[in-house]
């Protein structure tokens, strides 16, 4: 039996009079990579922020690993890891000290193991001992991916994980995400990059104007809409 890592039911999020998320429902199964795909301002980041316990919900329900997000946000924070789209790191810390800072919030017995894993994922070589301020955008993103995945979260929530990266760095990050899932982490990500989604995701949900307009396996959706890629699927769905 496939267990749901994330259960979202009739989720609504309003910012004042603006309805950002209009009653969406979806499940993310344990051990899969689930992609939320959509244009700018579709509501992807809002959904991910809600699941990361950053924003409150207006109505509906969200359960992560059986914890109700409205009731147990503290418990959820122990088992998730969130990577915001334009996330930064503390500029005056070295990459290694930054990873140690994050690891200090988790089980002290696993601190060294976490930091070693983070350094391995970031793969910055000797530069891990340099200040974050001196890193290129790609290096910074790899450090942050390392930070997000080193804690072995049950659910990794990644907002545009390869945003702003060159082809080589983006490929590296995708490989890291694939490897992480093999070690038992469930991944929920958002992306503009349809090819990336096709390559990475087991299932996807297409989101537009705060509503999920289609959901399924990339291959199934391409067959259903007789499309060559997810980009074409998306275009046909929203038209």
């Amino acid at each position, binding site marked *: 039996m496939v267990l749901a890592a994330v259960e979202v039911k009739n989720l609504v999020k309003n910012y004042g009079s603006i309805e950002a998320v209009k009653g969406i429902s979806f499940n993310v199964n344990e051990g899969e990579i689930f992609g939320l795909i959509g244009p700018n301002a579709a509501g992807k980041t809002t959904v991910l922020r809600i699941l990361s316990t950053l924003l409150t*919900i207006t109505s509906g329900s969200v359960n992560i690993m059986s914890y109700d997000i409205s009731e147990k946000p503290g418990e959820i924070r122990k088992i998730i890891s969130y990577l915001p789209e334009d996330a930064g790191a*503390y500029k005056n810390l070295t990459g290694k000290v930054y990873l140690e800072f994050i690891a200090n919030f988790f089980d002290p017995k696993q601190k060294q193991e976490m930091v070693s894993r983070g350094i391995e994922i970031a793969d910055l070589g000797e530069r891990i001992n340099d200040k974050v301020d001196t890193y290129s955008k790609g290096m910074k993103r790899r450090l942050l991916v390392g930070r997000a995945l080193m804690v072995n979260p049950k659910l990794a929530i990644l907002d545009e994980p390869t945003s702003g990266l060159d082809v080589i760095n983006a490929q590296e990050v995708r490989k890291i995400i694939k490897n992480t899932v093999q070690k038992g982490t469930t991944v929920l990500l958002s992306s503009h990059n349809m090819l990336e989604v096709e390559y990475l995701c087991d299932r996807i949900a297409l989101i537009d104007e705060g509503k999920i307009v289609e959901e399924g396996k990339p291959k199934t959706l391409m067959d259903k809409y007789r499309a060559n890629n997810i980009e074409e699927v998306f275009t046909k769905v929203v038209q």
Partner: protein
Amino acid sequence: MSALGNIVKKEFKELLTPATILPVIIIALLFGSIGSSMEGIMEGFQEKPVLGYINEDSNNLSTIVTTYLDNYSEVIFNSTDIADKSYALEQVKQNEGVALIVIKQNFSTDILNDTRGEIEIYWIMRGAGLFDTVKSEVVEGLIASINREISKALIEDNTTINATIALGPSSRIDTTYFKDREIGLSPGTITNMLASQSTFIPIVIMMLIIFAGQMIISSMALEKENKTLETLLTLPVKRTSIVTGKIAASAFIGLIFAVIYMFGMNYYFQGFQMTAGVSLAQYGLTLTSLDFILIGISLFIALIAALALCMLLGTFAKNYKSAQTLVFPVTMLAMIPMFITMFADFDTMPLALKVFMFAIPFSHPMMASRALIFDDYVLVFGGIIYALIFAIITIIIVVWIFKTDRLLTGSTRKKRKLSFRR
């Protein structure tokens, strides 16, 4: 529209924002209020001081003194009998007077015999701020003028007395009644001696609050600008820990800065000390170990209150630039009590100003040292308790904001039962 006009129009729109206009308006209002306060003080210089005198000497030279006092001050009591001294002092106190002047027996004879004539001045001092001594300074001026009048009379009469005595015919014995103490100094000297408390401590506290406040507001703004706050808020750490951690770190760094400043400022003010040879300790005006502990507690609590307030303002900061504007209200709240403490004593302030000063939590450590010298523990303990309550309430509000969407979206909207319990 020409290219030049287009650029000028754009620059106006960019530069003339509420964030740039508001500080200018507040500064203008502040200077305006300082100006009107100064006007009141200048009027104080022009007003006749309220005095009483007892003239035990019935000769000509003492008449010069009493005539001058009658002409240039508002005499509310005069007598020739020293037995009336206690009653006279009471009258001066009740009539908000400045001093009781006693012209000693043989005043004129002594001068004519080459000895300075004695005048005893019993001052009623109400506050140790620089503005509180305005009226006593006026009396000091009167005494100097009286001396000149006596010298003039002596020279005109071709009196054959020592030239030194002719030019400085009287000597003074000062006694000041201040906060239930009798001190053998003039109010001016006491104010000078307390000047280190009046100026040095408020300046250091003002700097400490501004620097520490700026640090914490900038820290919040940078967390938002660099998008590190989002990560921090999704980690398994309580909101209370984030808030108190930031406040504790800024308080510690702020205190280090304060110690560094105190050393520098201490040497700076030592260079201006005018009271060589006279010390407050001679008159029992010293701070005990308990007093120093209380000042430390008052300072620490005020700093925490300031940082909590800055943290609250920091939640409104969108980026580092906007944080600089948000520091402004805190800067004002630190500078206003600093100036007021320098120039006026809490006891002599009008009720509205007292309430205003008490309401600003940063005022209390500024006022604490002077209050403790005169054993005014009620003001100090009251200030500590108030600042502590202020800090706790502000921290609770900040933690509440950290639990809402406000931090990331600018809205605190929470929906009924569906709100998060963090």
